[in-house]
């Protein structure tokens, strides 16, 4: 069986460290998770966690503007960051002789970011992020699906009610003062996990980490996640919305509340999503695409999120000239059909997940990100070697109970996109 080796350490300032050697290729991945995401944003500042992530690439006290990217690219490395509901991560993969450069850069912005912040940089990155929103959401067919589903699945006072990208008005309202306050509140070693994975020697890496991060003082205790975080893991009532857009083909999304990531039932939900929509023997593909030919594609997946409840989403895009009502009837009938699945469906899904996870673990950046994730979310990096056992333990009985409780076809968040012209004609 797969055993990803790792050791954990902790600096006096609270920084959690995971070291996971993999000496195959001369590359090393450095990955930092900060325990802050869009869930932590205050009303009027949606999108700020992500805008802040952009500011982290604008230089720090000892790193001149644009040099963060330049120093990694010149080293022959790749880098990025991403913001999600529960966290913000930063990562670079570099040839292993440049490990210290990556650590120095990450430490400089963790400890010494604010002296480099200017109004000009904020205005520039605000424009970049607004263009990111246009690109991902506003100028993209079906681009606002997640934003809409989040408002339907989570109540207004829940931290997942709003999207990561946030609203244009809130992005416009962000100030340099917000940058400073957000940094002082969330960006501190005691709210971070640092993982190094790849080609390095444990003792030397630990010494370098201590050298660069050891002098960063801890921050205050991180505030509680705002809003109502405790909600039922089953939707209380059915909601439906129809959106008319400049698209060619109707698409229907159905979303369900499911147990949050980390709970045992989460893994049942994950297997359910594979049974539903992963591969050409999945329930939705078989019925909607191959047999009834009402859909052109089907997708199903589970959001791995931790606050209160997660979300399972399925969607299907209609074939041309297909009546959206017929698509909806077919989809709800397929959801009802989940009650009749067999052991074969469960085993097929488990085997697909196994192969996919194995494939993901080939990359040192993926290994590092998983180790950071399991440490940040559950304080259990060992989950990297135990996740598959949890998935394999899902039984047909678990699945039937899950379907009965969570995938009621009468109670879902139902979001239908229709082509603008077709709706006018109707």
């Amino acid at each position, binding site marked *: 069986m797969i055993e990803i080796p790792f050791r954990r350490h902790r600096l006096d300032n609270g920084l959690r460290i995971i070291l996971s050697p993999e000496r195959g*290729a001369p590359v090393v991945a450095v990955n930092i998770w900060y325990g802050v995401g869009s869930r932590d944003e205050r009303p009027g500042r949606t999108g700020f966690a992500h805008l802040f992530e952009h500011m982290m690439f604008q230089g720090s006290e000892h790193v001149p503007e644009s040099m963060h990217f330049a120093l990694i690219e*010149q080293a*022959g490395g790749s880098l990025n960051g991403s913001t999600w509901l529960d966290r913000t991560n930063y990562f670079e993969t570099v040839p292993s002789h440049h490990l210290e*450069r990556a650590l*120095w850069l990450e430490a400089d912005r963790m400890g010494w970011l604010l002296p480099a912040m200017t109004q000009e940089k904020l205005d520039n990155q605000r*424009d970049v992020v607004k263009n990111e929103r246009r690109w991902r959401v506003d100028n993209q067919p079906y681009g606002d699906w997640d934003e809409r589903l989040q408002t339907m699945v989570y109540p207004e006072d829940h931290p997942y009610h709003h999207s990561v990208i946030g609203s244009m008005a809130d992005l416009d309202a962000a100030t340099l003062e917000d940058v400073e306050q957000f940094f002082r509140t969330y960006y501190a070693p005691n709210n971070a996990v640092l993982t190094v994975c790849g080609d390095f020697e444990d003792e030397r890496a630990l010494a370098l980490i201590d050298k660069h991060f050891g002098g960063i003082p801890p921050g205050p205790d991180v505030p509680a996640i705002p809003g109502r975080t405790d909600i039922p893991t089953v939707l209380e009532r059915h909601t439906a919305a129809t959106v008319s857009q400049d698209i060619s083909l109707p698409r229907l999304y159905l979303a369900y509340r499911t147990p949050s990531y980390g709970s045992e039932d989460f893994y049942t939900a994950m297997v359910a999503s594979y049974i539903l929509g992963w591969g050409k023997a999945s329930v939705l593909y078989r019925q909607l695409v191959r047999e009834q030919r009402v859909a052109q594609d089907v997708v199903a997946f589970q959001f791995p999120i931790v606050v209160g409840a997660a979300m399972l989403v399925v969607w299907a895009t209609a074939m041309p000239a297909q009546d959206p009502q017929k698509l909806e009837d077919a989809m709800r009938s397929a959801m009802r059909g989940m009650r009749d699945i067999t052991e074969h469906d469960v085993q097929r899904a488990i085997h697909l997940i196994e192969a996919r996870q194995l494939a993901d673990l*080939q990359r040192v950046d993926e290994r590092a990100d998983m180790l950071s994730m399991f440490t940040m979310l559950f304080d259990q990096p060992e989950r990297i070697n135990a996740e598959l056992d949890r998935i394999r333990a899902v039984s047909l009985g678990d699945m039937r109970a899950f379907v009965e409780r969570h995938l009621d076809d009468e109670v879902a968040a139902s979001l239908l996109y229709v082509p603008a012209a077709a709706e006018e004609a109707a």
Partner: protein
Amino acid sequence: MSTRHAPTPPEPGPVRAFDFPVIHDDRIGDAGLRVLTASHGDLPLVTAHLVLDAGAGAEPEGLDGVARLTANAMEAGTRKRNADQLAWALESLGVELDTGTGWDAGHLAITVPTDRLEDALALFAEIVRRPAFPADQIERLREEQLAGILQRRKEPRALGDDMAARYIFAEGMPYGRPVVGREATVRGLGADHVAAFYEARYRPGSGALVFTGDITAERAAGLARSHFGDWNSGAAQPARVPVQPRVDTTTIFVVDRPGSVQSEIRIGDVGVERAHPDFFPLIVFNTILGGAFTSRLNMNLRERHGFTYGVNSGFAFRRQPGPFSISAAVATDVTARAVEEALSEMRGLHDGGATAQELDAARDYLRGVLPLTLQTTDQLAGRVAEIVVFDLPIDYFVQYRDHIADVTADDVARVARDRLRLSRLAIVVVGDAEQITKPLQDLGIGPVQVVDGP
């Protein structure tokens, strides 16, 4: 506890050499199917990747889209199993069939845990060698392909790419249309066309089976022999793709998308063929222009002006010259300014070449990132397949980083002058014509035509 941080970046440690995995090169069977094997990684995973001379460039006149339809039809069933049974058999092993269609080649691949390789490869061979092409399933796949073509018209990025290809290449040139084909031709495709394309192009003598991951060359050759050793249908005829540019003077084509909050910009030209002697200078040049985050285009359009979330440039290297293009999605109200800034960066590199610092950075970047793009068995298989498709020497990737290191400032200046032909660009802008046409005309860089979409 100190609160000071080291003020300058630390010096690098000792370099550990990167060795591209050794590739074993065998031939099996009467048809001489090439079997390339690269042992790789520490996980029990194997990729089997069959690359065939079955790209869109080999499609018969009037049947464009048939290469993609044939690739998809491989999963429509075999002579032993219908589509549903085949999907169950594969996915019960945890395997998803990966198929791809480019201009020069098509591929089928599986990535599988080592202990299921034997069963998975038997199925893989059944798919490759005994497809049934049932008319009813082919019809369904054709309708799905048509639905995909319909969706590309409303998806601004795909629309930008498709319209750029149309206006970079002269009318009637294959590279001027998308690999998925056009509605008019795909509508006429059926099982007979698929079977004929399969018969003509899916041939062992002009393909290769690549194994990467947890496998030895001996085991790979043994497996290849037992499943493909008697596959004897010879080789496919080499395809010829004619290439002619569309414009001889810089022209802006505006594709109207009313209400669009961004404009998808493509600044394009005909590029060069993969075998061009300037291949390495060109990729260094492109890294400096728009091939990295810190490229001139991105530092200007994103980091200085905030016009876009990102801009990039690139050559599509094919056996014949593919497109060279710059791509960006910019806010509607800055469309013309973004085009102007992009052209000014092109002019700057054309006239002045690159600085020594840029050249060093680009070479170091390209040399360093190679191993990062080879971490997985399927990434590695894809790169090994390039050796087959472009007829490269077997030690090509071993030499790759030395070739990059050999690129000089003069090389970059020369290819920048050769390839940045500012007077004959095809510029495509997908956006709100009412708002962007006048400012684009005011740039005075060439005629502006508002054109229909596909």
